[in-house]
């Protein structure tokens, strides 16, 4: 029983980080209809940027804020350099460009930081687990989860209550109508990329704290894809729920199924679940079904 509860808590907490990365994915899809396959690399870059700032002697929380700032800049740059010229081109071309970007970023990251695994040194979070009642949670997970949730809340509030957030949602809904009101599509895309970069970057930094940072953090970004699809490609609450579900499945799979299917159950659980789930709910949890009026 205790093992079960522990597994669940850990799952939910890792899920929080996945949700953060998933948010970036959803945003770009929502605003421009593009599935950004470079998302894993955005996560990777975020992890390394935080690491570098931290190693330069900044406190971790400042390093995270720095990563957010760098994320904004890189997001805007990406949009301007790679994607601005593609507005109005077929979606598939844009998706292919993101594949290209993913290779490019991977190369740049290896060029700058090399391919050895790096760990935050000194460790950011204490190695002693925190005890809540009879539950023992390692503090990395707990703090990562809290930080993720805070950031998610900030982003959600941004969409709901600020004019920029609303214009982004409006553009996702009906681009031409938004344009007719003076919403600048370029700005909306750039903002979507900036926020995606920020959320994925911090997600990467947190994941890096758990496992150390090397190129495989980028694959974790790809692992978030089932979370996104599960939640419904264009739903922010869906991304959050999807992230947590994936975190849970991974940990449950790892704890209980690994003994029967040793190897990679943890990694394929999310994908298998996604495939089955989509049979029954093809739009995901809260994806947009077209509102049809009869």
């Amino acid at each position, binding site marked *: 029983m205790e093992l079960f509860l522990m597994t669940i808590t850990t799952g939910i907490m890792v899920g929080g980080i996945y949700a953060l990365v998933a948010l970036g994915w959803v945003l770009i899809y929502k605003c421009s209809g593009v599935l950004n396959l470079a998302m894993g690399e955005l996560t990777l870059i975020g992890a390394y940027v935080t690491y570098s700032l931290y190693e330069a002697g900044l406190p971790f929380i400042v390093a995270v804020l720095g990563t957010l700032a760098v994320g904004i800049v890189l997001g805007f740059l990406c949009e301007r350099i790679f994607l601005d010229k593609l507005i109005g081109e077929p979606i598939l071309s844009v998706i292919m460009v993101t594949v290209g970007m993913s290779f490019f970023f991977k190369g740049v990251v290896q060029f700058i930081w090399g391919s050895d695994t790096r760990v935050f040194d000194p460790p950011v979070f204490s190695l002693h687990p925190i005890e809540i009642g009879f539950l023992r949670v390692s503090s990395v997970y707990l703090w990562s989860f809290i930080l993720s949730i805070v950031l998610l809340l900030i982003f959600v509030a941004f969409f709901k209550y600020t004019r920029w957030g609303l214009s982004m949602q409006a553009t996702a809904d*009906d681009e*031409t109508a938004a*344009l*007719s009101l003076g919403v600048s*599509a370029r700005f909306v895309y750039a903002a979507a990329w900036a926020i995606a970069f920020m959320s994925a970057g911090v997600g990467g930094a947190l994941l890096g704290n758990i496992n150390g940072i090397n190129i495989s953090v980028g694959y974790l970004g790809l692992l978030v894809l089932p979370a996104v699809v599960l939640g419904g490609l264009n739903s922010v609450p869906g991304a959050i729920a999807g992230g947590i579900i994936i975190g849970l499945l991974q940990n449950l799979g790892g704890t209980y199924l690994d003994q029967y299917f040793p190897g990679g159950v943890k990694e394929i659980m999310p994908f298998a679940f996604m495939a089955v789930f989509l049979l029954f709910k093809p739009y995901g949890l809260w994806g947009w079904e077209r509102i049809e009026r009869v």
Partner: protein
Amino acid sequence: MDTVESILKINNIEVKYHEVILVLKGVSIEVPRAGIVALLGANGAGKSTTLKAISGLLGTEDGEVTDGAIEYEGRLIHHERAANIARWGIVQVIEGRRVFEHLTVEENLKVGAHLRKTGSVKEGLELVYHYFPRLRQKRNETAGLVSGGEQQMTVVGRALMTEPKLVLLDEPSMGLAPMLIHEIFNIITKLNKEEHISILLVEQNAKLALNVAPYAYVMETGRIVMDDNSEKLSQNEDIKDFYLGLTDKGGKKSFRDVKHYKRRKRWLS
């Protein structure tokens, strides 16, 4: 027409899609400040394209003004970005009630206000609710799920939130019940009178349009074929025949007599 200052002057524009398809072949229209002008014409005459040329939305459809000029308040705008044109006070209400379906009615309105100063958003909302009291009741409902008339009101209200000087209305009556059409047109006339907003109205329903607008243009296959005071236009034999569905005697037309294809329009030479 010449005596009043005009807010918008379209001077003999030509519009091409994809650099080859010539859609407008010399269209000239003038909208007086704080006036209403109607633009009539059948399907495919180029009315919506004319509006998109003004608002700059042509760009998203790979269309371009290749000749002529559009002058708005002394500024040439036919090569500007849609976002800039909207900032200067032109807003187009696209046909087909394009609400942001997944936002609430009030959020829809707020998107319209995204260029306003923060403090004045509330004022704007109050103004919209003053003209469209029904929207106040529906403010927190999802816009995709309110009735067609309310969606049309939302769309017009949203345009109003941008503090426009010139509204381009594309077929506000489409697919609405007669009573609602009446209501919406009343409000539009009121907006014009009380807020001094200029309106360029595109309509298929010619009778309605000629009632609301004192001056009208008639378009056919990419050209302006006629323009005059609405009174004179509604007396014109061809307009009566082709747009108002009346015979020479002013009675309802019997479909037995209709032989469209034999009768030649007098403006075609």
